[in-house]
């Protein structure tokens, strides 16, 4: 169980937040930040550990969200069952798009492009298909019972999304120590060498993409329950694809805590900008984009990496480099 203590401590500390404040503004902020951390952790599995940069994680987020919502609205399925099916549907989309892209040998820019295109196709289809409510969107019926995965106050929502994040942290921690994780990192570092060493790179990438999609889809399902409204732009729009990669890259790509740290930092920056400039649209995103460029330029291992190298300097030990 070595190495799991930091996860326990972090989750325990975060779990205390609703006990310290009942402010809806704070809780809402934290719920959204944790949601982004979850979606970002999904991206991190494929992008951070596998080195396959997806620009279309909206495809999985949106599928999770729509499947949960549509099952409830049109088929009267229980929300919790909807959650499970939503995650499975997201994973399926990940597996299918992954199989198609990796089978064709797409990587780097091409992989980024094709994932973006898949998300856009789904966005356009969902903006005209009757089952998604087309332009009007899908409204999940208000039903404030825990059986319906809806709550009067924000605290239960907060604990649930925190539990999701905790599970994703455990999965990634487990991944780091596993054979599968080692193969995945080998693919990231040098795919040809990994192949030559006998790793079935196609299967490894496909498994990573499916897992990645499932985690991100869980975020989508939660979104549908929390906000109770979806349209094509929310579910499949580029905003979530960008947030998904922003959190791990800023927090520390290919690390367990990167997405969580990144999501908290990015969201705080966004809120501070809004506080400073009023509710004018756009400026918070300008900051996001600028931070992304700055982090890539000056802190390739993210904020987490920055801390690590500071600590290492303090101890005057050489810094262990994760990315060369």
């Amino acid at each position, binding site marked *: 169980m070595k190495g799991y203590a930091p996860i326990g401590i972090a989750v325990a500390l975060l779990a205390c937040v609703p006990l310290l404040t009942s402010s809806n503004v704070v809780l809402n902020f934290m719920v959204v930040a944790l949601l982004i951390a979850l979606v970002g952790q999904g991206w991190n599995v494929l992008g951070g550990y596998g080195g396959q940069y997806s*620009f279309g994680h909206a495809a999985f987020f949106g599928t999770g969200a729509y499947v949960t919502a549509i099952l409830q609205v049109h088929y009267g399925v229980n929300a919790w069952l909807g959650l499970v099916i939503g995650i499975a549907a997201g994973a399926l989309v990940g597996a299918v798009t992954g199989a198609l892209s990796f089978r064709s040998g797409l990587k*780097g820019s091409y992989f980024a492009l094709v994932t973006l295109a898949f998300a856009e196709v789904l966005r356009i289809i969902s903006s005209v298909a009757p089952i998604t409510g087309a332009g009007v969107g899908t409204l999940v019926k208000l039903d404030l019972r825990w059986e319906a995965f809806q709550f009067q106050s924000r605290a239960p929502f907060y604990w649930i999304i925190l539990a999701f994040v905790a599970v994703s942290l455990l999965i990634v921690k487990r991944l780091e120590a596993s054979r599968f994780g080692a193969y995945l990192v080998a693919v990231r570092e040098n795919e040809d060498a990994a192949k030559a060493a006998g790793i079935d790179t196609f299967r490894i990438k496909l498994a990573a993409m499916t897992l990645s999609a499932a985690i991100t889809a869980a975020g989508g399902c939660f979104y549908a329950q929390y906000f109770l409204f979806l349209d094509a732009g929310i579910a499949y729009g580029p905003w979530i694809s960008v947030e998904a990669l922003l959190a791990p890259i800023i927090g520390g790509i290919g690390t367990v805590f990167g997405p969580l740290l990144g999501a908290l930092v990015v969201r705080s920056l966004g809120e501070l900008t809004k506080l400073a400039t009023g509710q004018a649209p756009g400026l918070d995103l300008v900051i996001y*984009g600028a931070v992304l460029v700055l982090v890539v330029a000056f802190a390739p291992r993210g904020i987490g990496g920055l801390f690590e190298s500071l600590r290492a300097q303090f101890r005057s030990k050489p810094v262990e480099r994760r990315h060369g």
Partner: protein
Amino acid sequence: MLSPIILVPAILNGLLTGAVYALVALGLTLIYGVLHIINFAHGALLTAAMFAAFFAHRMLGLDPYLAAVGLTPLFFCLGYGLQRFVIGPAAHGEDRNILLVTLGLAVVIENALLYAFRADTRTINLSYGFNVVEIGPAFLSLPRVIGFGIVVAVALALWLLMQWTDTGKAIRAVAKEKLGAELSGIDVAHIYAMTFGIGTACLAIAACLLLPTYYVNPHAGNAFVLIAFTIVVLGGMGSVAGALIGGLIIGVVESLCGLYLGESLGQIGIFVIFILVLLFRPSGLFGERA
């Protein structure tokens, strides 16, 4: 359904639209061919150019075609500066980083425009905006016919530039063999920035051609950039001829899909082509096998 009275105008209109698509794609493919990066900021830069052309008309009363004369060098310098001082240094020469940096730039530019000008959609009114030219059974919009002519001229000029000038030769040398070019004394960072500048300048021209018949808002460029990606992939990454022909093909496909499937699904045809080409022939029609 297939009567030539409907079909011929649809195809001609598709060709006219496709020409402007081709110009946007030309910038993208040029940058890819030399720098081997996909410029995700392309759409945002196009939007910026459209706003520039819009305000040149609103504030200075400049006709968009006249504004192109001033905006083209301006956007060349902008592109040059971006590559030389932002993208190049920030990316540390790693492809994955370049993807992220151009994506970051796209987010910054698009949302700075959103912040400055709000989400309002703007159009300009020109005295000749609704004039038409009659060709056979088709009535074609005059600004778009002019646009087609200008795209052909720009493509020709670009070809001459690449073929006969020292800069053009240096660009081709860097595209083929970066290290060799560097060893023969070519300043690669400068050539990279020149290429990025030329690609961005193409956008300024495209923006001025679009404005008489199109609207501008902070997301206007996005509609074009995915189409441009499709064209570039279809034509073959880095192939100038591929971009031109791919642009015309996509214009016609969109027009015909719009005719038979309805306006909102017209774009689906483009994305389906995009995904199919990426999956089955990522080198495109004219590209070299990767």
